């Protein structure tokens, strides 16, 4: 394994972006700016047509989990009666809210004036945001995005665009601002640029040994899922990341130099295990070189290649990519996307992380696993990992399953 100095500049850029994000968010909210909380795949670019503070609870929960306070914050929600069977992101976020930000590395997020959720990543999110709607008596706009068993249909695209227009009217009414389409067009253009660099970074997995790890991609997706989407800062960060990673490949500095196992990860990042898991895998000459969770960024359903925002109509493009993340599309499309990754990156094994918190991601993995084993004859394994609640993860037991899979692939 290479030294911990990998991607140093990108790491510094990431740290700055994330710190600035939370600091500015609190400062701007304190100065009276209108605060919107959104679900991750609500099109942030569309909101760039306004002057808003945008916060993403899922991102905040992931950050808490990665910083080791996931369980503590989740317990605070459990004490208020929220079942431990509910998604850990929701519990962490609600716990932080009930504790008025205490225990969160960012002291939580500023109080919202408007909530925007969607039901295509999961419909649990709608219920989660409804808790705040009732507590704070503020509007909650839900984008209803029909689930895709096949590529998005025209009728669904039109329906989503109609909802975007309704959302724009609501924000105009609540803020007194006028939506600036030109700014949104620019944001979409910048997202397109950032996606290009992001794909360039992910494609380094094709190298033997791979030029990156999925763990790198988990960490560096953070700005993408905050309000940096549609900004020049994100373009610069993704460019820096891709350039720096390419440079390392050119100097033969690889994350797992003696790479024997090239693995694909299916599910959300195990935030509380990133370092431990990547280290333990590297010791076995194994590298998780790609993940469905991060390869979907910048794509549309069933694909891993970049979807180009080439239309002059930003609402069209933003509606078209409402299914970019994995959860809003079905088994067949997910299978197609995974096959593309397996073939492109010479995958030798697949880890399906069965995550009881996230049913939308996990339910269907058994069939995916069976179909992939049948088609490619490569070993696969299913391990139980909650992405944000370490209490629902038994490291030794689950890692043993991974080791057994690696043995099968030799």
């Amino acid at each position, binding site marked *: 394994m290479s030294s911990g100095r990998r991607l140093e500049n990108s790491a510094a850029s990431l740290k700055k972006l994330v710190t600035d994000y939370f600091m500015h968010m609190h400062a701007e909210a304190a100065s009276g700016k209108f605060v919107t909380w959104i679900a991750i795949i609500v099109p942030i670019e569309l909101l760039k047509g306004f002057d808003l503070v945008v916060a993403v609870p899922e991102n905040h929960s992931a950050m808490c989990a990665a910083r080791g306070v996931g369980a503590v914050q989740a317990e605070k929600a459990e004490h208020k*009666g929220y079942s431990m069977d509910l998604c850990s992101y929701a519990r962490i976020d609600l716990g932080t809210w009930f504790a008025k930000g205490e225990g969160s590395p960012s002291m939580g997020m500023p109080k919202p004036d408007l909530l925007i959720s969607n*039901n295509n990543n999961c419909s649990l999110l709608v219920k989660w945001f409804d808790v705040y709607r009732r507590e704070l008596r503020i509007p909650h706009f839900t984008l209803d995005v029909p689930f895709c068993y096949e590529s998005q249909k025209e009728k669904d695209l039109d329906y989503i665009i109609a909802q975007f227009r*309704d959302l724009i009217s609501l924000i105009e009414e609540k803020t007194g601002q006028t939506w600036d389409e030109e700014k949104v067009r620019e944001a979409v253009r910048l997202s397109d640029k950032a996606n290009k660099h992001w794909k360039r970074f992910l494609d380094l997995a094709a190298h033997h040994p791979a030029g990156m790890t999925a763990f790198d991609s988990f960490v560096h997706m953070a700005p993408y899922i905050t309000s940096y989407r549609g900004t020049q800062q994100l373009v610069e960060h993704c460019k820096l990341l891709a350039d720096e990673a390419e440079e390392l490949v050119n100097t033969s500095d690889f994350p797992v130099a003696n790479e024997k196992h090239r693995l694909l990860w299916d599910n959300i990042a195990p935030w509380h295990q990133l370092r431990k898991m990547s280290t333990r895998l590297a010791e076995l000459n194994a590298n998780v070189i790609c993940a469905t969770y991060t390869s979907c960024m910048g794509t549309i359903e069933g694909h891993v290649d970049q979807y180009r925002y080439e239309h002059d109509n930003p609402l069209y493009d933003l509606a078209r990519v409402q299914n970019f993340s994995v959860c809003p599309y079905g088994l067949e499309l997910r299978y197609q996307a995974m096959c593309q990754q397996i073939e492109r990156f010479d995958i030798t094994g697949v880890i399906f992380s069965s995550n009881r918190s996230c049913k939308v991601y996990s339910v269907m993995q058994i069939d995916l696993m069976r179909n992939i084993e049948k088609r490619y004859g490569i070993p696969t394994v299913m391990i139980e990992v909650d992405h944000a609640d370490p209490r629902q993860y038994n490291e030794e037991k689950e890692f043993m399953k991974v080791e057994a899979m690696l043995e099968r692939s030799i």
Partner: protein
Amino acid sequence: MPDISKTNVKPVIGCFPLYPPLELFHSMGLTPVILWGLAEKYDKTIHADQHIQNYCCGVARKMTEYILTDGEKELDALFMYNACDTLRNLPEILSCGLGDADLPMLKLHIPAARLDSDYGRNYLENEISNLIEGLEELTGHAFEMSSFRDSVSMYRLLREKLDAVNTCMANGTFGYAGTIQQLTSLNGLPVEKQIEALDAYLISQNVDSLPEKHKRIVVSGILPPPRYACEALDKAGFCVVADDTAMVGRSNGYTPDSYDSVAEYYYNFYMNHVPCSTLLHTADRKVDAIVDLVKQKKAKGFIFVGEKYCEYEYFELPYLEKKLQEAGIKVLVLEFALGDASHGAIQTRIDAFSEMLEEAP
């Protein structure tokens, strides 16, 4: 649940979840069967476990077990509309499990957000038109408005009968366990036979043998409790004055009165549906509706029947509990999971709740 294949001469369409357009299916010459209430049909979920994880709710696992085991034999088609996060993945999982079995599936997306908007309404109406096209292709029959009206009348009558049964239950002339058993046994029958069965059941009421019941409660959840728990409620002297479960009260609470088209009927049907956590556009009204129901029925207690892993219901529980307690209503939360054997613990909690209500003013 009766053996579906023996009780039906018409093609059967198995539906999930609980609020499908039954009248439309009936008018197209199909027998719609809601694939719920299967808890007692299978001891294990061996086939389902090959496809979905054990942290999915028992409802989804039992239904999957049924479709994979008996689906091809007993059903001619499947229908699903969008509901929770577990169910939305099921169509393709079922296809994997069914392999070459010929079981066509129709789908409908009910707008989950602003059904009151023009775009929400248009979307739903378009979905209904597409569904009709799919049904015409499936059955070979053309849709006819007059048949649809007849089917609506039939289901309206069914819901009236069900209402009468609920009234008897609220009066204490029917026990809860017997009523739920009766209602569960109806599923799988054509609507005409369901009406006959309910008529017979209503005649069977025996007012003379009524025990004194003063512990008035409302029960809510996705499914009514399993039989042993219903029996425990009866034994403890509870009178279920309203069953707000998705399978009973929420399913049968509303039939639109006037409509000029099938699309208008279903717009009204979903728009004004009894609030349910699974119909997102109605969820806003749910907690208030429950509190109102409890007050209107003069219930002293409320029992939440939790289906383990049902996020929709559990997310709303803390707020619901808070509102009920503010209204002075005692709340008991029971949780049921597939294969759990905690009968004794449930019984004890029911008994303790009974004592608590006795002491309540």
